[in-house]
Each structure stands twice: as C-alpha cells, then as structure tokens.
C-alpha cells in the first residue's frame, strides 16, 4: 500500500546516501571497528546510539542539527585515536562534501595540539589554502602513483610557500611528485587515445608500454655488464666488411663480427693483471687494473635479466589478477553491464555516440542470448552445433599442422638451394624463411576470422577467446619448430663454425621481418581498407582496431627477443627501437583510420589475459629454451665466451670449484650449490608446498562463497519480515482507530 511504501522510502537504508548524519555515523562505526582491530583501549559507550535511527531523520529541524554536531564530535574523537595515516585514509574515503571534510579536519587539528594550531589555523579564504587542503585530503594515503595529476601542476604556481617548516617539507615533496608525474612519457597521447576510443584500446597501448619497460631493463643490464666492457676491450677482430644497406635486414655481412652477436665476446678474463706485468714485477701501474671475467659476466647477466623480467611479470600478473578476480561473481552480468558500462574517460561527441550505440548493441545481444538460452535446444540442434564446433577446431588444428610442415620442408629446400649459389644470393635467401613465417602469421588470423563467421558461437566473448587461442597455438607451434631446428642444427646453420652467431642472426632477421610485416599489415589492413570502404563502397564505417591480433603480434615479437638474448645481447635494444616506432605508427594509424571495436571488451579482464599469455606460453617457453641451451647444448669450439667448454653450465661449475679452492672459507657456497641447485629434492618440496597453498586458498574461497549465499538468503528473509511488520502495524493502527 502507499503508506507502506512511504514508510519504506524513509527507512535508514534508503536515505543513508543523502543524510550527512547517517554517513558520519556509518564512518564512526567503521573507524571504531578499525580502532578495535588495532587493539587500543575501548572508548566508553555513548548513551546516544551511533547507528541511525528512525527518529533522527530531518536535517532541517533544529534538534537534528544538534545531533549532527554530536555525531561529528564523536567521529572526531574516534579519528583522533587512530594513527595519522589511517586517519587521513579514513577522511579520504568518507563520501562527504569538501566543506564537511574541512570542518572535520580543522576539528582534528584543533584537538590534536595547540602548538601546531598556528600553522594550520590560518583560516585561509584564498583558493590557495582550500586547494592545499584539498590536495592533502584527496591525495594522502594513496601513494604517489595515482594523484589528480593536472591539478597540482596547475595549482602550484598560485600557491606561495607561506607555511613554516613541517608544512614546508611536505610542500617540497608534493612539488617533486608533481614534476615526476608531469614527466611521464606519452601522457597526453594516451589521454587522447582513451578520449576517443575508450579503455579497451588504451589497454593495448599500456601493454606496449609495459613491454617497452621490460626491454629497457634487460637492455640496461646487458649494456652495463657485458656490452660496454667488451666494447672497451675489443678482441682481435677480422677485417671489417663494407657496410651495405642489406645488413639492416639480414644482420649478416659487416654486422657478423660486431657487438651484436655472441661470437664477438671473448672467453678470457679481460684486463687480467697476470698478462700485464712485463718483467714479472709486481709494482702496481698508475691505473689500477680490475680483472673482469667475461664468460661469467655474460651468463650471469643473461640469467639476472631473465630473473628480473620474471619477477616483474609475476608481480604485474598478481596485481592485475587481484584487480579482476572476485569471489562469487559468476552471476550478475546484466546489472554490472548497466551500472559499470559507461566509460567516463570518453569525451569526444562522436565517440560518445559510438559508445552509446555499442552499449545498446551489447545489451540487445545479451538479452537475445538469454532468451535463446532459456529456450532449450532440441537434441538434433545440439548435435549439429557440437559437430560444427568439432569440425571447426579440427580444421584449424590441421591448418596449424599444415603450416608447420610447410615451414619445415621450406627451410630444408632453402638450405639445399643456398649450398650452390653466390654470396649475394645467399644473403638474400636468408631472408626468405622469416618472410614466409611472418606471412603465415599475418594471413592465418584472417582465415580464422572467416572460420569463426561460419561457426556461430554462443556469445561474442567466447568468439574472442577462441580466436586468441587458435592464433596463439599457431604462433607457439611454429616457434617450437624453429627452436628445435636451431638447436639441432641439422638444417639451419649446419655449415657454420660459429653456430650461435648464426642463430642470433636468424633471430634478428625474424624480429626485423616481424616489424616490416606489422607495418605492411597496418598499412593495408587499416589505411587501404579505409580508403576502399570510403571511396569504393561508400560506407561510413571505418575498419575496427583488432585488439587481440595486435596484442598477439606484440607477444610474438617479445618471445623472439627473449629467445635471442643469449645469442644476440643487443636484441633488446633492437626490440626497444621497434616498440618505440610501433607506438607512434599505430597511434597515427588509429587516429586516422580506425573506429573503436564494437565487440564487448572488459578492459581489466583483457589486460589480465594479456599479461598471463605473456608470462605463460611466451616467457616460460623462452626460459625453458634458455635453460636447455645452458644446460645441455655444447657451445661452438672457435668463437664466443664459452669456447671449448662442454656446456655453458660447466663453466659456472668450474668457477665455483676455483672459488672454493682459492678461499676455503666459502665452502658453504659450494654446499649450497651442490645440495640446493643440483638436488631434485628441493624442487619436489617446493612444488608440494605450492600445491598445499593452492588447495588451502581454494577451500577458503569455497567457504566464502557458501557464506555469501547464506547471508543473501538472510537479507531476503529480513526484507520480507520488514514488509510484514509494517503491514501488521498498519492493520493494528487502523483497527485501533476504529
């Protein structure tokens, strides 16, 4: 009835959003809980209850105003008992207006101590003081990473430093932070992109930025510890060949005996004082000589750069997992879509209109999907659907097999051809295999798209996942075949003496070809296609930016770089350059030619998937390849830092033995080395512990899900009780009236 509805409408749970008193009480509760958790002595209970009750509801009448003051003072008292950072974090999270927060804060500082009162009690009516308060209120407790950037930058020139020293240090800190934030690379470009295309396309560019960071770190480690030192002490080199333009593509020719490849690095201790004393005298020379063991440095730098990359990858993966995985979130797609779909970062009118259309299409699709799901399919239709799915997967896997066999036989054929042809032709022929592999990588996704159009999936999201899966399988299997060919050296580089340099050159060629083909793909797939659509077919629609395909291309390029670090230490530098150029080219092409994707993309989910794909097939595969090379492959006899050693790992072992002999105090190191690194028991133990932790977490999540279910039932029951009680009260009241 209407009376019931009126009463229900004024219940505390419905008006908590608008009443300041209610919000203050709620946060008083939260603060009290926080304080109790940090085990301070409990505050004595106030007679006026802190929970909002039905009586204290009108803010306009005076008695309520008195209660508001009371509530405020109670909250301030609670906040005082917290630590300063907790206190500011609490203030930050309270959804009150700025004026309220300022009053609270002034109360706090007044009660905290009179000596500091002079500094903060200036009661500034200038915007400067307000803004400083605002910065402090908004930014404290959150860390430096995500501040309202432009705000400080603009506010800063207006604020003159009038405050005494405790404020002064903080001001200096803020000034430094704002400078750091303003210096972030590509800040404006990323804002442009997100303004026009939304968060999903932005996730591609952020991924590119992450990869750039990984490459720069690897490059710096290798530069400082390996490349720079070898450049300072060059080995006795072969006469350099003249530079022709072809070297940039093939990596051979005059690049062969350069810092770019493994073969250039010496296997001796650089700058060894033993070789420098001319008459056997032990007088120190004017410049102190520091011996530098190059092979050790080489293998350790490569190992350290991989370890650092691994740590960073696992850290970013855990962060994005933490953001995107939620307990008990299996249902609720439509509600989430409606409440969270609006991307406030989009500001251009045309993009806003596009976003509206996208949301409408997605909602319609979800509703249609739900309707079709509720209509159960007949057995015949289900069988047909399953058989179509099976056929499509069989077709795509056989295509992958076909590509792999093609690559294998093609490389054998190329090898046979190179054996009898001139030098120029040999160099050019070297490019053909990378060309073919890149061509396959570019064409097959389009074929997969056609296949997907034929088999209709249940939902658009499933379509995207299936496409990513198939492309990934293709790329990884082809790379696997190539790795096998490089290591077994039966086909490629079988005639070379310095096979590591040859493999490094091959990888360099693959990286360069991949870049060239990405450029061509951007050119033809986006620019030319847009011109065709506009001029010939006269359609208003522009080509879409295919996020999944572009990201997989980035992952493929990064895998190649990681595979090649051991053989070509400067490969991360090449990849860095390539990523930098790619950023600008893709951005320009995006702005000129594309429109935002119409498929549903949950940006955070996708970023998690990208990082996971980067970690698991890509990085893990490269790490396995590297470990196998270090552990079991014999390096070449005549070149490189590991000439004449059995395996690269053996050189590390011999060094440990030499160390042990030279200094008997370090036997613990060999003990550690022998028992922990070489013993398999440790591996089993660690895996056992990991499995136990995973099982424990699964059980915790299961328990939490059960509790959520029970609590939901309880809340529904209470809602029913509430309605029942109100109706009963009404009927009793009406009876009494009569």
């Amino acid at each position: 009835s209407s009376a019931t509805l009126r009463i229900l409408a004024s219940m505390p749970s419905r008006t908590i959003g608008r009443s300041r008193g209610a919000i203050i009480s709620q946060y008083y509760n939260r603060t009290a809980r926080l304080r109790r958790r940090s085990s301070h002595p409990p505050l004595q209970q106030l007679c006026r209850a802190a929970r909002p009750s039905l009586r204290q509801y009108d803010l306009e009448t005076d008695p309520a105003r008195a209660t508001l003051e009371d509530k405020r003072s109670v909250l301030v008292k609670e906040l005082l008992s917290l630590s300063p950072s907790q206190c500011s974090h609490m203030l930050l999270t309270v959804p009150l207006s700025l004026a309220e927060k300022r009053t609270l804060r002034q109360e706090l500082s007044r009660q905290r101590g009179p000596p500091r009162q002079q500094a903060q009690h200036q009661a500034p009516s200038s915007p400067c003081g307000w803004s400083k308060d605002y910065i402090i209120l908004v930014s404290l407790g959150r860390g430096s990473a995500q501040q309202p950037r432009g705000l400080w930058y603009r506010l800063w020139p207006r604020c003159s430093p009038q405050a005494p020293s405790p404020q002064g240090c903080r001001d200096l800190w803020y000034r430094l932070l704002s400078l750091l934030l303003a210096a972030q690379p590509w800040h404006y470009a990323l804002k442009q992109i997100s303004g026009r295309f939304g968060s999903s396309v932005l996730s591609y560019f952020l991924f590119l930025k992450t990869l750039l960071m990984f490459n720069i770190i690897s490059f710096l480690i290798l530069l400082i510890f390996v490349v720079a030192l070898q450049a300072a002490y060059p080995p006795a080199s072969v006469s350099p060949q003249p530079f022709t333009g072809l070297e940039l593509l093939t990596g051979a020719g005059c690049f062969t005996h350069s810092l770019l490849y493994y073969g250039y690095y010496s296997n001796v201790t650089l700058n060894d004082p033993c070789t420098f004393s001319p008459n056997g005298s032990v007088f120190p020379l004017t410049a102190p000589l520091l011996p530098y063991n190059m092979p050790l440095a080489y293998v350790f730098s490569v190992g350290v750069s991989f370890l650092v990359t691994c740590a960073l990858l696992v850290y970013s993966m855990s962060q994005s997992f933490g953001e995107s995985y939620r307990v008990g979130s299996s249902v609720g797609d439509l509600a989430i879509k409606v409440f969270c779909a609006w991307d406030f970062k989009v500001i251009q009118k045309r993009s806003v209109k596009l976003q509206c259309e996208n949301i409408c299409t997605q909602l319609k699709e979800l509703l249609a999907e739900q309707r079709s799901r509720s209509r159960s399919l007949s057995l015949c239709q289900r069988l047909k659907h399953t058989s179509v799915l099976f056929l499509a997967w069989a077709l795509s896997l056989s295509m992958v097999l076909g590509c792999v066999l093609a690559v294998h036989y093609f490389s054998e054929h190329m090898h046979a051809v190179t054996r009898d042809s001139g030098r120029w032709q040999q160099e050019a022929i070297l490019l053909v295999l990378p060309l073919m592999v890149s061509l396959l990588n570019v064409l097959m996704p389009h074929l997969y798209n056609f296949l997907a159009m034929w088999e209709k999936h249940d939902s658009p999201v499933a379509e995207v996942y299936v496409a990513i899966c198939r492309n990934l399988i293709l790329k990884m299997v082809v790379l696997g075949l190539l790795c096998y060919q490089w290591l077994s050296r039966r086909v490629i580089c079988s005639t070379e003496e310095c096979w590591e340099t040859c493999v490094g050159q091959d990888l360099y060629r693959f990286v360069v070809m991949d870049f060239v083909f990405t450029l061509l793909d951007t050119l033809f797939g986006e620019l030319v296609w847009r011109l065709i659509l506009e001029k010939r077919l006269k359609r208003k629609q522009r080509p879409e930016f295919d996020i999944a395909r572009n990201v997989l291309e980035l992952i493929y390029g990064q895998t190649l770089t990681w595979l090649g670090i051991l053989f070509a230490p400067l490969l991360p530098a090449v990849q860095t350059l390539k990523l930098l150029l790619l950023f600008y080219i893709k951005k320009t092409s995006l702005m000129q030619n594309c429109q935002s994707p119409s498929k549903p993309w949950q940006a955070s989910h996708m970023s998690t998937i990208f990082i996971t794909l980067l970690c698991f097939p890509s990085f893990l595969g490269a790490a396995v390849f590297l470990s196998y090379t270090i552990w079991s492959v014999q390096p070449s006899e005549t070149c490189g830092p590991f000439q004449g050693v059995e395996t690269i790992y053996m050189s590390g072992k011999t060094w440990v033995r030499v160390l042990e002999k030279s200094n008997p105090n370090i036997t613990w190191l060999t003990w550690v080395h022998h028992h922990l690194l070489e013993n398999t028991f440790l591996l089993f133990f660690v895996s056992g512990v990991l499995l136990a932790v995973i099982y424990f977490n699964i059980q915790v999540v299961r328990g939490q899900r059960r509790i959520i279910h029970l609590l939901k039932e309880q809340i529904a029951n209470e809602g029913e009780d509430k309605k029942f009680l109100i109706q009963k009260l009404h009927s009793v009241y009406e009876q009494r009236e009569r």
Partner: protein
Amino acid sequence: AYKRFSELLPKEERENACSVRLPKSQILTLPELRANPFRHRICQVFSTSEYGDDSMSFEDFLDMLSVFSDSATSDVKSHYAFRIFDFDDDGTLSRKDLEKLVNCLTGQGEESQLSNAEMEQLIQNILEESDIDKDGTINLSEFQHIVSRSPDFARCGGLQR
C-alpha cells in the same frame, strides 16, 4: 582546477572566484561534461545551491573533480554514482530510475533505444541479480555490492585529467 574554474567565469568576476557561483550553462561547456549523457544529473548532485538552479561554487567544482579523479576510492565513487543514477532523488533506484538510466546509456536516437519488451526483460534481470532484500528497488548497499564486483568501475568511472 582554480584556473579552469576562473576561465569559465566572465572577466569582471574573476578575482572573486571563490565566492561566486557558476551558472549551469557555463559548467556544461567543460569538455568532459559536454557530451556526457549524465551531465544534468552531475550538476544537480554536486551543486549545493539553495535556489535549485544547479549552479556550482568553487567548492562544488572541487568536489566534483575529486570524486571523478583517478585517486578517489571506489567507496566514494560508488556513493556518488548512486546519487547520479537516482534520477528522482528518493534514495533508491526504482524501476523508473533504471529505465531512465538505460535510456541515457543507449543514447537519444530512435534506433538505439531498447523496445519495451526488451526494457522489461532487462529491468527484471537487473532486479533479480542485484535486489537482495527483494523489495523491488536497489538501495545504496546493494548498488555498492554489485559495483564492487566489477573491476572496471574504478577505471572507467574517472575523468582523466
């Protein structure tokens, strides 16, 4: 932010910017709000004007920016998002509020609006999924519960500055 606020004021009032109220028409010229379908509600929610003309003072302006910045907690963002989506200001999202919300999201054009049957189905589903106490409306706690499940809310619910 002060600079941007004073830019929107006419020249003679700029020195006194802290105590002047900016009329709604001027606020709506901000690039972030110009094309936003929720701009009217945003002005209504953040304005503390007693005359109900949705004008904003500098404090209100700062409030708005702080809620939309990237560093506001999801608590604060969901609180204000709830108020923005509550078109009739009654403290809960009733069926009418949800209908208006969906219409805002899908745009103003004729082709992009949902049909009545679809709207009914959508609202029915939303209430089923999010109304925990089964009273036919979504209150603040239920809204915050739903929104906390989506990690995109924190990311998309911000104006990048």
